[in-house]
Every structure is written in C-alpha cells, then in structure tokens.
C-alpha cells in the first residue's frame, strides 16, 4: 500500500512550473542507435500540438481567457502569442457564454477555432452554445452547416480547489449526439488527440486534466512527428492482461497501471484499457477485453450516477460480452458528494490505487 502510494506521489506532480520537458536527445538530425524517444510533459505535448496545427492551417486560431499575453492560465499556450500574434491567439474577457458563441459562429463561417475553458466548470456558463449551437447544428441543417470547433481545457478534480472547481463533465458532454468527446491520459494521447480534434470537422470537447499537465511521458519518434494523430473513437490497451479488465480514462488510467503493478506480484494480470475517447466510445475494444478476462471494473473520477462507468456497464450488458462475465461488472467512481476541500477528504472522494486493488480482489474473489 505504501509502495503504491509512494509511486502515486511520484507519478503525480502538482503545480504550474513542473516538468518543462527535459529533452534527453536532440529531436532531429542526429540519430543514435536506438529510436529517439524523449520525455515530454503533457503540457509540452499540448503546446506542440497547438503550435503545429496553428502552423499547418491558417484558419486555426485559439481564444480564451489568458491564452495570449499570460501564456495560458496553465501555460499550455506558452510562446504562441509571441509567435502568432493577436489575430491567431485571442485573449477574451471573462465572458464564457459570449466568447464560446463567438467561437461557434466563427466555426460556422469557415474558421477552425480552439476555444479554451480555463476549467470545464466554467463551460457550464456556456453549455448552451456547446450543445445547442455547436453540437446540434450540423444535424438540424441536414449537413449544410458544419461546426469544426474544439473546446478544450482541464476537467475534473484538481488539488484542493473545492467543489465548484472540481466537477467532471465527461458524462454531461458524452451524453450528447453531435459532439465528440475525448479524454487524454498520456502526452501521446494529449498531442495526438488534440491534433485529431482540430482536424475533425465536428465539434470536439477535449477534457484534459490539470494534475496531468506536469507529468512527463516517453514519446516515441513517431509520436513526435508533425502528422502524428491519435484516432478519435479508438481505445488503447495500455497493459495486456488475462484476469480482469480495468477500463478508465484520463488520470485514473495511471492509477489502474499502478494497481496492476502491485497486483502482478500476487499473480493477478490486469488488462488496462485507456478509453482515450468518451464519445464515440470504443465498446468493441472493451468487449474484446471482457471476452478474454471475464471480469470488468470501470474506474473514473466523475460521480457515479449516469456516468461513464454506468454507460460502459449498460453497453456490456447489451452486447455479446455479457455472456463472458464471471462476476457483475463494477464501477469505481468519485464519491457522490460535492468535492470537499481538506486533503484527506478530497483523496477519499476519488478512486485511489488501493480502491482499485480492493475491487479487483473482490471481483476475483481472492
């Protein structure tokens, strides 16, 4: 337990200035004998994706609070205003409903805006523009008016920011036809999904995680390329396993991998599925995994009722994988309370590594 907690503390580093992407090798020109993988933080991966897409297509621009001269509230857009100027990187007043509508209108008129919410909690002020204006227009116009906008920003719990700043919106946006919803975990996810989202002609909601921004991941040479995309709608098997399927998204994927590392010492091999996309959900990958392992646990930070885990369980029941379950599917979720402030309370309101280990053992009856 202590080892798991220690590993967890190492993995997750809070604070805005962590992990400026230490490059271990030069990125181009000089090739060693091994593939030139580098350590890149999620923040830097997002920054690269933004830079590359802004450079690639004149119609792409970024708007939001503090994205320009402040370099981004979480420094995701660091350096971009200096490089691209006022036309492409636009600081907005604190007017979510207004600037979100402006982003959507700009998309309708042929531009490709990236609309940043400082956190997705503030997107609630603008949710009508996201769902009714962006999400539904292509359908209502019978295909005449596409809305190629990306809404992005940190989602879910942070560290001690209190109830109004900690909500997870995966279920809210995942509920709506007309929107695509993605939720990256690693740097590769973040970069590839952001690039894919910008190039997608549909409105895409990209749910990042503030606590992941400073976390470094190894990025392969392929992932460093300017045309590296992660397909929307396809999950990734982060760890192969045979005894139980752990399905998760965003930060919880890391917790699942931590739990798997502990459980392997007891002979339990967990298969960890990183959803990457909430909508359209890659049910086939989950089904294939459940057919193999016969046990399913979903792990998420959001509230239990009507959540991502609830949807996964329902879909498994409705499909062929149900016949392969040896135990009821289990949802691990955030606690059904507004997020408290005190550290010990907050930690216990989110699924921890020990909770995942406990759930696996209970499901496997060991």
């Amino acid at each position: 337990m202590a080892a798991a907690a220690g590993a967890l503390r190492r993995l997750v580093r809070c604070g805005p200035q962590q992990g400026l992407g230490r490059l271990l090798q030069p990125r181009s020109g000089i090739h060693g004998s091994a593939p030139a993988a580098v350590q890149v933080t999620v923040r830097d991966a997002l920054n690269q994706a933004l830079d590359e897409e802004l450079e690639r297509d004149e119609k792409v621009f970024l708007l939001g609070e503090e994205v320009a001269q402040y370099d981004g509230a979480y420094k995701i857009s660091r350096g971009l205003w200096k490089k691209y100027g006022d036309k492409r990187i636009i600081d907005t007043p604190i007017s979510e409903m207004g600037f979100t509508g402006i982003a959507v209108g700009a998309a309708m008129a042929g531009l490709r805006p990236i609309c940043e919410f400082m956190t997705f909690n503030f997107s609630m002020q603008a949710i009508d523009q996201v769902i009714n204006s962006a999400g539904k227009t292509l359908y209502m116009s019978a295909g005449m008016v596409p809305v190629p906008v990306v809404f992005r920003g940190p989602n879910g719990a942070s560290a001690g920011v209190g109830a109004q700043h900690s909500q997870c919106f995966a279920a809210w946006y995942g509920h709506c036809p007309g929107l695509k919803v993605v939720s990256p975990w690693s740097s590769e996810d973040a970069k590839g999904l952001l690039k894919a989202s910008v190039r997608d002609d549909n409105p895409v909601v990209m749910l990042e995680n503030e606590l992941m921004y400073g976390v470094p991941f190894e990025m392969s040479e392929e992932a460093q390329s300017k045309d590296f995309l992660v397909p929307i709608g396809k999950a990734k098997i982060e760890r192969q396993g045979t005894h139980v399927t752990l399905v998760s998204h965003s930060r919880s994927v890391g917790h699942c991998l931590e739990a798997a590392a502990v459980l392997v010492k007891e002979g339990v091999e967990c298969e960890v599925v990183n959803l990457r996309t909430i909508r359209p959900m890659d049910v086939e990958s989950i089904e294939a995994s459940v057919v193999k392992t016969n046990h399913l646990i979903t792990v998420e930070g959001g509230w239990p009722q009507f959540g991502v885990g609830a949807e996964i369980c329902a879909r498994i029941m409705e499909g062929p994988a149900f016949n392969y379950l040896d135990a009821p599917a289990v949802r691990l979720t955030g606690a059904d309370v507004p997020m408290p402030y005190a550290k010990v309370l907050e930690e216990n309101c989110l699924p921890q590594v020990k909770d995942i280990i406990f759930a696996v053992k209970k499901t496997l009856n060991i």
Partner: protein
Amino acid sequence: MRSPSLEEGPPVTAVLTREEGLHYYRTMQTIRRMELKSDQLYKQKIIRGFCHLYDGQEACCVGLEAAIKPTDHLITAYRAHGYAYTRGTSVREILAELTGRKGGCAKGKGGSMHMYAQNFYGGNGIVGAQVPLGAGIALACKYFGKDEICLTLYGDGAANQGQIFETYNMAALWKLPCIFICENNRYGMGTSVERAAASTDYYKRGDYIPGIRVDGMDILCVREATKFAAEHCRSGKGPMLMELQTYRYHGHSMSDPGIRYSKKDCVNLLYWLIYIQGLLSG
C-alpha cells in the same frame, strides 16, 4: 433617432427605382402570403411544433437584404421564414421544411426554427444565443479580410439577455464588422416591452456602440439605415446597433392566440408609395 456616439445619421431621403419598388413589393407580398398560408397549415395540423410567423415585419427582412450583398452574412432567431426567403431559399423548400418533407431546405430535420442557406445561419431556437454566433461570423469576416459583414438579429425580448451584452463588449473591443439589429415588435412573447425592460431605448442599449432607431414599417428607412450601418462596419469602425420598430400581426407563435392591433401595414405602405409615385405603370 440616433445615439450620442454617432456624429452623423443615415440620409433622410432615398431614391427608389421602378424595378426596385416592384421587386420589394413582390418579395414582401410573397412572404405575407407564405406566412398566412403557414398559419392555415398549422391550424390544419400539417405544420407541427413551433411556428413563429413574420407577417407584419416584412419591410425589415426585405429592407435589410436590399442594403447588403449576397456575400454578406445574416443570422437571426426563430422568426426566420422571411429571412430564409430573402437569403435565397424558395417558398417550396420553406413550406416543404415546415411540413416535414425531405424536399425541405433541411430535409425535414430542422423545422420552422432551423432553416439555413448560403451565408444565412438560421433559424436559432434559443433566445439570444444567435447574437454571439453572429459576432463570431463577423470575426471570421474580419479574419478572412474579404470586406464582408454580418447582420445579427434579435428581438426586444432577447435584448435583455446577458450574452448580448457580453457580445457587445467583445464586438466593440475587437471592432468586429457586425450590425446588431433589434427587431422591436413591442412584445417578447406575451410580455410588452414596458413590463420587460427598464429601458426600452433598445438602440441605446449598446452603450458605447453607436445606435440608431429606425421605422421598421418603412422599407426605404430600413434600407437606407442599413446601408449607413454597413458602410460604418465595412470601414473598420467596429459594430453598430439598429433598432427596427415594427409589428407582428400574429401572436408570438401559433400557440399564442393573442390579437395585436396595428394600424400600419408595411406592404400596403409600399404599395401606396409606388402607386403615388406613378411607378406602377410603365
């Protein structure tokens, strides 16, 4: 009438050619007939759901269109049938859409409130939501640098929406080529303007945005005011606000049986104007 931030107003005289007069008249009459027919079809339950009719306000949509180019952009709320027509959708496509047929302009998937055309962005059901959208379209106009503008319409009821004030701020800050147009037909659904607004000077509500009040029943007033506002926007001076004072003859929608009195009829007004000027006969 104009707000103090404008030094000059639109011209007080206009030139109307025979071709123009007859074209405007035909267009307004077509919309009038189309809306009255829609009223009938709704009562026969052939049109379902919501149906917000535009009869009475025809001088607004025809006057606006007369002042802009097809390459300019326009967005409005749900009382949109007139605009769908002036922006290029045929009567057939509009009625087919209203009656849920695949020959409708949105293949029957949109209905009364969601009709779109080239450079016409609907048809929007959520009161006030179209206003930030319109400013976004104006942002795209400025971004692309093609000398286009966006006309962003809303009603007297919507004028009290917070998102409109957020939009005024950003449009003025960024000098977006957007004409905000308040179609004041005196009633927000069933509520008269005096009961909804602390200030019914809708043309002044934009505060730092120059505004003018226009007789929306007189098509030439609408046309000339819009030309003036369009020139203002195209010259890079930023947004303008126009209040068009008008009337609707039906209730808010077909569910509203309200009878509104109006002594003015904009279609008749134009008819008599061109008659008096001797334009009808060659």
